[in-house]
């Protein structure tokens, strides 16, 4: 854990100070914003994935594979559509974002708690349902976007790709606030999550308020996915790599250790990867695509190994 913390600090320093030009003040503040965004997104995705895997008791799922991020994009579009451009556009970005997150929590709870409760037996069907729901939400969002503004090719485009170079810095303060709150809550209930991972019958027998904790965990996932999606766009497989590595590195299923571990690993991968691509290779926006590619291969490998639990 200490080694990982040092590695993360090193990566951050390298990202900030490598190749500062003469206009270093300007560059530094620009980079600091991006760095904060990446750290937030990394932590959010890491915690969201670990929580989701615990709730679904399945190690190959991420909230994004199950369509969480698509749901957020749909919510966002639907909100603009239903409130009209007049009222909604006049709100400031943070307020707008807070409203979106609140609606996202309600929608994802309604959908995913029933889905996880009902389809728990047939894992393959559960995953397939999630994937198709993702397609449905994304198409519906595209449909709505076209209705709002028929020439808005860009809206759909934006929702289809992620880029870590394009952190939405307007939202940083509120995103930081929400992420920190959600992560603190997750760490606070960490011992209870260990019991949750034993499955409902055992958890109930041990006196855990299982269903309430599951709803709490899903709400946290909804908040964290909203933050990550709003900041950089949809990233489906990144969390899978992070959670997989964290489980290996932590060596135990204890969430008090697993969650910080996952956050550190995510931070190192994002900041280190971005430093490498941006500074060493001169490629601005490709890290997300590369991570998705590698993560997709990893997921495929897991599936082919028959490890769907």
């Amino acid at each position, binding site marked *: 854990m200490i080694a990982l913390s040092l590695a993360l600090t090193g990566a951050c320093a390298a990202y900030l100070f490598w190749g500062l030009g003469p206009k270093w003040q300007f560059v530094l503040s620009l980079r600091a914003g991006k760095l904060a965004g990446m750290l937030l997104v990394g932590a959010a995705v890491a915690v969201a994935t670990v929580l989701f895997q615990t709730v679904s008791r399945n190690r190959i799922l991420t909230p994004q594979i199950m369509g969480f991020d698509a749901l957020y994009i749909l919510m966002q579009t639907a909100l603009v559509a239903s409130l009209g451009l007049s009222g909604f556009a006049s709100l400031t970005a943070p307020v707008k974002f807070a409203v979106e997150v609140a609606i996202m929590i309600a929608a994802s709870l309604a959908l995913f708690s029933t889905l996880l409760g009902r389809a728990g037996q*047939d894992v*393959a*069907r559960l*995953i*397939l*349902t999630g*994937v*198709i*729901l993702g*397609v*449905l939400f*994304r*198409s*519906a969002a*595209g*449909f709505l976007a*076209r*209705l709002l503004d*028929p*020439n808005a*090719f860009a809206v*759909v*485009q934006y929702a*289809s*790709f992620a880029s870590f170079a394009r952190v939405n810095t307007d939202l940083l303060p509120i995103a930081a606030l929400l992420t920190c709150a959600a992560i603190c809550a997750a760490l606070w209930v960490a011992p209870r999550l260990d019991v949750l991972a034993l499955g409902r019958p055992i958890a109930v027998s041990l006196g855990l308020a299982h269903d309430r904790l599951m709803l709490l965990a899903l709400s946290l996932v909804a908040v964290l996915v909203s933050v990550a999606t709003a900041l950089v766009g949809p990233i*489906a497989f990144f969390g899978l790599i992070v959670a997989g590595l964290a489980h290996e590195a932590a060596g135990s299923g204890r969430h008090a250790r697993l969650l910080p571990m996952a956050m550190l690993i995510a931070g190192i991968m994002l900041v280190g990867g971005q430093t490498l691509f941006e500074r060493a290779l001169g*490629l601005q*926006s*490709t890290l997300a*695509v*590369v991570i*998705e*590619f590698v993560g*997709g*291969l990893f*997921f*495929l490998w897991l*599936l*082919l190994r*028959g490890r*769907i639990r």
Partner: protein
Amino acid sequence: MRPALALSLTLLPLSAASLLIGAADMNLASVGTDPQAALILTVSRLPRTLAVILTGAALGIAGVVMQQLVRNRFVEPGTTGTAESAALGLLAIALIAPAAPIWVKMMAASLAAMAGTALFLRLIRRLPAREVLLVPLVGIVLSTILGAMVTFIGWQTDLLQMIGIWLFTGEFSGVIAGRYELLWIAAAAAALAWFAADRFAILGLGEAAATGLGLNPDAVMRLGLVVVAVVTALVIVTVGMIPFIGLVVPNIVARGMGDNLRATLPVTAAGGAALVLACDIIGRLVRYPYEVPVGTVLGVVGSLLFLWLLYREPARG
């Protein structure tokens, strides 16, 4: 033949509607006298309607063939990496030889689609046999990975706009006379499947059963691959990705009529055509005079139908 007849009858009014709806004013009665109206009809409306019908029919049949090859009901060319492979092939040819004639592009896309589908068939042989739903899942993930490759290359080479059209939202708004005729070849490939219908039906029983009946399963497999790849590649080259048709239409038809392909293929073709036509008309009307791409409409309608299929009964191969 009742369902086929009923579907053909619904195709007629849909086609008529498709001919009448459009941004430009046109009166069907005045086609004979008004040269402007005749021009709109022959250059835009008629080609578009034909393109939609050909696409829907060909994709429906490609879906059936794919499902027989894989022996799994939950696959179609759009969820097995076929479409993304075709896009990859197109991208490659656009980079290597931008000025290549259309038939070279078409060949490249078809070959790439074939390779991608063959890769998928290879992969799923390694899956545990009873996990029926893992097959479409592997296909979707493979599609995502291939799609990421296409996106990456497109990003580096500033061809993203072009790829976006191929990969994400198929639409017919760009169809005019002279720019859709490749689809006739796709329809011909699909018709080829009808002549080999019995072979595919037997292959669907399993390789052992096919060999026992004196059929060479590999040869049928190759024929199926060609049909699926050619149809998918041509549709992508001409109008872009149209999702779910190959999946939901064959499933609904099989539910009602079973799997005797010689009888069901025409119904599947008519059903595919009717569904795409209906969705295209919806896309044209809902925000008139602008258009919502048919790929987007089908993304919504198709995924809802798919979920319905997934939960209506216990999953079967």
